C-alpha cells in the first residue's frame, strides 16, 4: 500500500493538517443534521481525506465497507433509451461516484442517481439519520446542464439524501449550487505542515531523515501533500539511507513540458512550432490534462523570462486557457498560445539585441 493511503487519517480526530476544519465538521455532524457540503481547494490538500473521515464519523465503521460496482443506468429520454455505464463505490450509507465520467450525458446520471437513492431510503432502527450520503467528485467538471439539474434535485430530495460535493475550483460550480451547500475551503498545506507530516511518516517507518531533507521535498512538492508523500516514498525506494543532498527526480511529464519550454525559448519559427506540436501530441495521448500542460508550461516559461514580458504572457495564457474550455480541441489553443509566445518573444529579442 502506498504511504499516501497508509498514513491517511481515518477519523476526524486524527486529522493533523486541517485540524480546525476537522473539529468544526465534527461539531456539525454531532448536531444530527448535516447540510449539503461543498469541499473545494487545490489538489493534494486533503479534501478527500476529510470527506472520508466525515462519513466515518457520521456512520461509524459501516461506512468503510465499500464495494465497487459498475452500474448501468437506463435512462428514458422520451425518444430513446440511453444506457450509461458508470462505476460507483457504495456502502450501506453512502455512494461515491464521479459523474463527469459520463461525459456530456452527466446530467442524466446526476438526476437518476439521486432519484434512485431517494426511492430506497434506508430506515434506521432509531429513526435517526435516515438519509444516505452521495459523494460527487469533480463537480467542477460537470456540464452546466448537469449542475442545473443537480440544483433542482438537491432541493427536491433533500429529506432523503445529503450531497457532499468535491471540486478543485468553486468558481466553476454554479452560484445556485454553491449557495445551497455549506462551503468548506480546504487550503493547500503550508510547507511547515508538510514537513511535519513527512517527519511523522518517517518516524512511523523508522527512517532517519537527514536535516533539511523533508524541507526540500516539501519545497519540491509545490504545497501538494499527496505529491510530497509520493516523492518521499520514491526517495525511499531509490536510495536508503538518505544522503544529505538527495532529491527526488522530477515527474516525467513535467520534465517533458520543461523541455518544450526550452525548445520554444531557443528557436521561434513555424518549423519549431510544428516540432512542439508533436510533443504536445505525445503528452495528450498520455492523457495529461491540457490545463495542466498549459499551467506547467507557463510556469516554466515565466522562470526564464524577462520581467517586462511576464504580464503579457500571463494574459495570453489566461486567454487561451479560457478558449480551451470553450472549445473542444485543446491542441488548437495550446498551439495558439505557443505561437503567440513565440511571436512576442521574438519581437522582444529583436528589440533587445537587434
Amino acid at each position: 500500500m502506498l504511504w499516501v493511503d497508509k498514513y491517511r487519517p481515518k477519523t476526524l480526530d486524527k486529522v493533523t493538517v486541517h485540524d480546525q476544519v476537522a473539529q468544526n465538521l465534527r461539531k456539525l455532524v454531532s448536531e444530527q443534521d448535516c447540510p449539503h457540503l461543498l469541499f473545494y481547494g487545490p489538489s493534494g490538500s486533503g479534501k478527500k481525506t476529510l470527506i472520508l473521515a466525515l462519513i466515518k464519523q457520521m456512520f461509524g465503521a459501516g461506512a468503510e465497507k465499500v464495494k465497487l460496482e459498475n452500474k448501468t443506468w437506463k435512462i428514458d429520454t422520451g425518444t430513446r433509451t440511453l444506457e450509461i455505464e458508470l462505476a460507483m463505490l457504495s456502502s450501506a450509507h453512502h455512494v461515491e461516484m464521479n459523474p463527469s465520467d459520463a461525459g456530456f450525458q452527466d446530467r442524466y446520471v446526476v438526476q437518476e442517481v439521486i432519484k434512485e437513492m431517494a426511492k430506497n431510503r434506508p430506515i434506521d432502527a432509531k429513526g435517526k439519520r435516515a438519509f444516505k450520503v452521495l459523494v460527487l467528485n469533480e463537480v467542477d467538471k460537470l456540464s452546466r446542464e448537469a449542475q442545473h439539474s443537480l440544483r433542482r434535485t438537491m432541493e427536491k430530495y433533500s429529506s432523503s439524501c445529503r450531497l457532499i460535493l468535491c471540486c478543485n475550483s468553486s468558481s466553476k460550480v454554479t452560484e445556485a449550487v454553491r449557495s445551497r451547500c455549506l462551503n468548506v475551503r480546504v487550503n493547500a498545506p503550508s510547507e511547515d505542515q508538510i514537513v511535519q507530516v513527512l517527519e511523522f511518516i518517517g518516524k512511523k517507518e523508522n527512517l532517519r531523515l537527514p536535516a533539511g531533507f523533508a524541507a526540500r521535498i516539501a519545497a519540491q512538492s509545490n504545497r501538494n501533500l499527496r505529491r510530497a508523500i509520493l516523492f518521499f516514498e520514491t526517495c525511499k525506494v531509490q536510495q536508503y539511507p538518505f544522503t544529505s543532498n538527495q532529491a527526488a527526480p522530477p515527474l516525467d511529464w513535467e520534465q517533458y513540458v520543461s523541455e518544450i519550454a526550452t525548445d520554444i525559448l531557443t528557436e521561434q519559427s513555424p518549423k519549431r512550432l510544428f516540432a512542439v506540436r508533436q510533443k504536445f501530441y505525445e503528452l495528450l495521448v498520455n492523457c495529461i490534462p491540457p490545463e495542466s500542460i498549459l499551467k506547467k508550461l507557463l510556469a516554466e516559461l515565466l522562470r526564464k523570462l524577462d520581467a517586462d514580458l511576464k504580464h503579457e504572457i500571463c494574459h495570453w495564457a489566461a486567454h487561451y486557457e479560457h478558449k480551451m474550455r470553450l472549445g473542444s480541441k485543446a491542441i488548437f489553443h495550446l498551439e495558439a498560445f505557443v505561437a503567440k509566445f513565440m511571436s512576442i518573444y521574438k519581437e522582444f529579442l529583436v528589440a533587445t539585441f537587434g
Partner: protein
Amino acid sequence: MGKRRQVVVLSSSSGEDDGGGRRGPRARRPRTPASAPAPVQVQAQAAGASRKKPRRESSVGRGRRRASKLAPSDSLKDEFDMLSEDFSECFNDFSMPGFIRKTKELWVDKYTPHSLAELAVHKKKIEDVKKWLEEKLKAPKTTVGGWTLVLTGQTGVGKSATVKAIADDLGADLCEWTTPVPTLWAEHVHANSGLRYISKLEEFETFVEKIRKYSMLCPTNTKSQRKLIIILIDDIPVTSGSGSFARLGKCLTGLVRSTQVPTVISLTHYHKSENNDTAMWKSEDLESLLQDAGAHKIAFNPVTTNSIKKILVRICKEESCNASEELLHQMATSSGGDIRHAIMSLQYYCLDPRRHSSALATSSNRTGSKSHDSLVPGHESYGPSSALPSPCGRDETLSLFHALGKFLHNKRETNSDVGTDLDPFPLKENLRRNSLKMDVPEKILSQAHGKVRTVADFLYENVIDFIDSEAVDDAWAVVSYLSDADCLLTASPIASYNSENIAQLIAASVAARGVLFGNAHGTPSRWHTIRSPKLWQIEQSFRSNKDHILKERFDCSRTCGFSNYSDLVTEFRPFERWIGPRNDGHRSSCLPHGVGGSPMGVADGNNSEEDDMIEDC
C-alpha cells in the same frame, strides 16, 4: 295481368332493395369509389334491366327509385343511397381526366438507346462489352468462374443502357433484381404496424442466393432452345460500417465465384468530392474485391462532349425545338459527361425557352454584381476555371483536397495598388492583403461540401508547412483563427450535424479566411503533401488510454475511493513506476509513448486520400 305483375315485381324489388340498401351504404362508405358501381349494378339487375354500362345503369336505377319514392318508410334511406351514388359518380367524373390525360414521356425514357448505333458510349467500349457477353453466352456452362463483368464509371455514362442494348442485340433476356420497397428503420420503430424490418442488405443477400441456385437449374432447359440470360445487378445496397460491408463483399465474391450465367455488376463511381460519405468510397474497395474474385472489369469513361452534343441535336430535331448551337454545347460541357443529365436539362429547357434564356441572363448578372459588393475588401475576381453559371448544368463541385489546396496555397494578385486610394476606409498597412485569385472562400467551402470539423482539422494539420519559415506572427494569426473556429464549432449544438447550421458556417468561414488572411507572407510555391490530421489518431489513442486508466484506477488507491482523474494521471502513475511494480508491473510506461511514427500520419486506411499530392497549379 302482366302490368300488375310488373308492379308487384317493382314493389318486391324495392323491398329487396331495402335489404340490400341496409347493407349497401354502410358497406360502401369506407370503400373506394372503384368498388361503388357493383351494388348499383345489382339493383339495376333486380329492376329487370339488361347488362349495360354501369353509369347508365345507375341513372336507370335512380329513375326507378324516384318512382318508388312514394313508399314513405323507404324515403330517407333512398335519399341516402342516392347521395352516396351521386358522390361516387362525381368522383368518377372527377378522376376521369387524370386517366385520360396523356402524360408526357420523359425524354430520357423516350430516347433510350435501343440499338448499338444509338449509344453515345465510345464504340470500343461497346465492342468490348459485346465481345465479352457473346463469348460468355456461347461458352459451355460447365466452366467455373470468370462469369462476371464489372462495369465501372460515373453516373449517367450509359453502363446499364449499354448492357440493355447489347442484350437486345444478342437476343438475350436481361434479368434484373427488382428492388422491393424498403422498410425504413424509423418506420419500423414508430409505425409499429407489424411491418417486418428487413435490411436492404439482407434482401440483397437472399436475392444473390436465389440467382446462384437458379443458375444451377438453368442448364436443364432443353438444349435446342437454350435461353440466353444475362443477369444485371445494378442496385447494390448501401452499407455502412465495416461489418456490413464485409457481408456484402462476401456475398458478392461468392456470387462471382459460383455463378454460371453471365452476370454484369455495374458500380457507380461517385464524384470525388461527394465521397465524404463513408458509404460511397467503398465502391472502389468493392471493385478491387470483385476483381480479386475473378471478375472482368471494364471501366466507362465520361461520355465525350461531342457525342452528348450529337445526341442532343438529334433529340432537338425530333422534338422540333430550336435550341441554339451554343446552348447545346454549354449543356453538353456542363453535364460533365453525364448524358442522362444532359437530356434532362434539355427537356427542362424546352419547356419554356423564353423564360429560361432570361433567367440565364439575370443569374449571370447577379453573380457578377455580387462579386463587387461582397464583404471582402478589394475585388475577388473569379478564377478562369469557373465558367459562366449555366441554368441547367450540374453544380460545379470541388474535391475537399482541391479546396484545401486553394486555402493553403493562398494565391493572390501580385499588383497591390488596386483600389487602395479609392477605398473610403483605408486599412492599416499590416492588415492589407492583395485580392484573392479565387472564388469567395465560402463559395469554395460550399462547393467542397466537407464537414466543417474536417476542414478545420485539415487546415490545422497542414497550414504550418505553408507559412514562411521566419513568420511566427503569421503562424500565430493563423492558429488563433483556428482556435476561434474551434470555439465556434463547439458552441454549436451537438445534435445538429448538418453543415447548414449557421454557427458551423461561420466557423468554417473563420477558419478558411483566417488561414488566408493570417498567412501574409506566402512561401514560394512548391509541392506539398497534404497530410491527414494526426489529431484524429491522437484522439483515438487518447480515448483508449483514458478508458484503460479509468478501468485501472481502483487498484491504484483502494482506500481513497475515487481519485481525481487528473491526479491519477499526473501524480499516481508517474510515481508508481518509481515506487515499484506493486501489482504486476505490466503497466505500460508513460512517456515517451509510441506516438511518433511516420510523418504521413494515420495508416489504417481510414482515409484513402491522405497521400493526395496537391499540385501547385
